[in-house]
């Protein structure tokens, strides 16, 4: 039996990198004002130069460097974070249906972020970072709740996980709705805009806000990616391979929640990326997380940049929420892949 991955394993990573770069440049060039690839690259270099030496840059370069670039970077980070946390959740819960959206982590993060919106704005150092911080707290609480509810002995059966994810998700979403109902109109406008999902109007400050969470979460995942492979075999078999299972699981849950918090606080709730990307890549690369996690990062970033670019141009000059694009494209594509390779790939 030939596996899809026999053919793809070697070339997947280079292909993904090339796609990432092309999509990045194209995405920077698309929008209300069009740029060609050469102009984009020159503008980015000019912007960096201008930053370092305090030089003036042209208005067209300003559009690229101060408006498009942070937005595209934010989209890339969000996509990367969602895909990586999806891969981690699927691994630790040994469950192909786990992802930040299904697990209720996204809902938890949005509840946390909503609380942050309700807070009086000026409370010291928190003013900038309260959204991702509370989003992280919310996602952590949500995943603990879901895991606690779903757990039977040391296993989390698929059905239990899905059910408790759904329950926790809907309770948390109801609380968010309730808060929206009672909150002042001014705050509500900002929140609704944010909850719909998307990257319009985001700037360098948003990038700066989530970068620490992104780096911390990502480092933990990369450090433990081989342990995550062992966890796929089950808790006891992983112990027999010398893995401190409960410690590693906790670290990975924290890491995945950090990444989810990043994604939700920069782009709102965006479904499907966390579920689909790791699955698609698993078909090409196999379940080894040492390959899967980096590939998920790059491919997740690529897909999200592309989705964001689409969101900008489909009904220009208006913008679509990016979550609509990911669900509309991701869903059918996933079904197609599932039918195609059902026999040998619908597993971790």
């Amino acid at each position, binding site marked *: 039996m030939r*596996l899809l991955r*026999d053919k793809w394993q070697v070339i997947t990573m280079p292909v993904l990198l090339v796609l990432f770069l092309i999509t990045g440049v194209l995405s920077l060039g698309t929008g209300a004002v069009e740029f060609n690839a050469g102009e984009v690259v020159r503008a980015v270099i000019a912007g960096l130069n201008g930053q370092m030496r305090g030089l003036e840059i042209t208005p067209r370069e300003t559009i690229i460097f101060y408006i498009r670039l942070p937005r595209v970077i934010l989209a890339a980070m969000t996509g990367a974070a969602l895909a990586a946390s999806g891969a981690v959740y699927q691994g630790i819960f*040994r469950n192909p249906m786990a992802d930040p959206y299904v697990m209720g982590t996204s809902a938890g993060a949005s509840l946390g972020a909503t609380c942050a919106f309700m807070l009086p704005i000026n409370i010291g150092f928190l003013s900038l970072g309260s959204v991702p911080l509370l989003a992280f707290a919310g996602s952590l609480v949500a995943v603990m709740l879901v895991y606690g509810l779903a757990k039977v002995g040391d296993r989390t059966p698929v059905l239990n996980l899905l059910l408790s994810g759904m329950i926790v998700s809907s309770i948390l979403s109801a609380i968010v709705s309730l808060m929206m109902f009672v909150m002042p109109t001014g705050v509500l406008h900002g929140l609704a805009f944010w909850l719909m999902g998307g990257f319009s109007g985001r700037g360098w400050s948003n990038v700066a806000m989530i970068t620490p969470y992104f780096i911390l979460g990502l480092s933990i995942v990369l450090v433990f990616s081989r342990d995550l492979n062992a966890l796929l075999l089950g808790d*006891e078999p992983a112990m027999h391979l*010398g893995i401190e299972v409960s410690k590693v699981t906790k670290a990975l849950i924290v890491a995945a929640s950090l990444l989810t918090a990043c994604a939700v606080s920069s782009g709102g709730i965006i479904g499907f990326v966390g579920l689909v990307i790791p699955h698609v890549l698993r078909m090409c690369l196999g379940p080894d997380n040492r390959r899967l996690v980096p590939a998920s990062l790059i491919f997740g970033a690529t897909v999200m940049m592309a989705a964001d670019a689409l969101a900008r141009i489909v009904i220009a000059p208006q913008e679509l929420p990016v979550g609509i694009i990911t669900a509309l494209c991701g869903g059918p594509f996933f079904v197609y892949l599932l039918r195609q390779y059902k026999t040998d790939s619908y597993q*971790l």
Partner: protein
Amino acid sequence: MIFIVGRMSVMSFEENEAIIEVNDLGFSYGPSAILKNVTFLVEAGEFLGILGPNGSGKTTLLRCMTGTLKPSCGEVFLDGRGLSSMKRREVAKMVSVLPQEPATDFGFTVQEFVAMGRLPHLERFEKEGPYDQKKTKWAMEVTNTYHLRGRLITSLSGGEVQRVFLAKALAQEPRILFLDEPIAHMDMNYQVEMLDTVKRLNQEHGLTVVAIMHEANLAAAYCDSLLLLSEGTVFDKGPIERVFTVENIEKLYGLDVIMLRHPVNGTGLVFPVYGETCSARP
């Protein structure tokens, strides 16, 4: 010359040394005690079979001995070191475990899976080196699974899966191999093949084997010694010739048995005396 003598004396000392010491082990789950006052030694190179009726605590004992369960009292020593003070990775360098019904719901190929046995020997970011690859290949060859290396675990038959799990356990380079009813759900030909492989490793490489056995006759054929477990306590432990008797088996299982000799191998065979409803009568 002196060096050689010194080395030999060390070796002979090691051969007699207990590699596993279970000392007054107890395990309770809530109010009910599953294991009580379990004490015994396993020598390096011994092939120990654990026999006992369902619910006698065999699997719990195995879990306490491999450190996945914490005993309520008592201690297990592996090569003189207390299990409770050892890191999981230190245990994994010494011990590997073949589970009863291995889960196979993951998409690793045989090669990738067996190579995971090298995990305890690798540092966090260390890649598998030539020695690890050699050991992985050896483990697959010994278990006759090398030709399956490119296949997905999920595409294998039950017997092949067990052999692949054994290969992973061996790639771990254990000094002690624990088997939890390794052959309970296998066809007869696979049972014999599996036990032959394990026995060969036991004889040729001095691998210590502790196996929960379902089938008393296979235990008698392959094990050096037996531990009989009854209601969470050690009923008897010793060499096959002394422990594998009609009286012991009758008491252990609460059943009348007869004992025969295997006409080819000469090992003991016990059979139950069947009930009245048995169809063929002399």
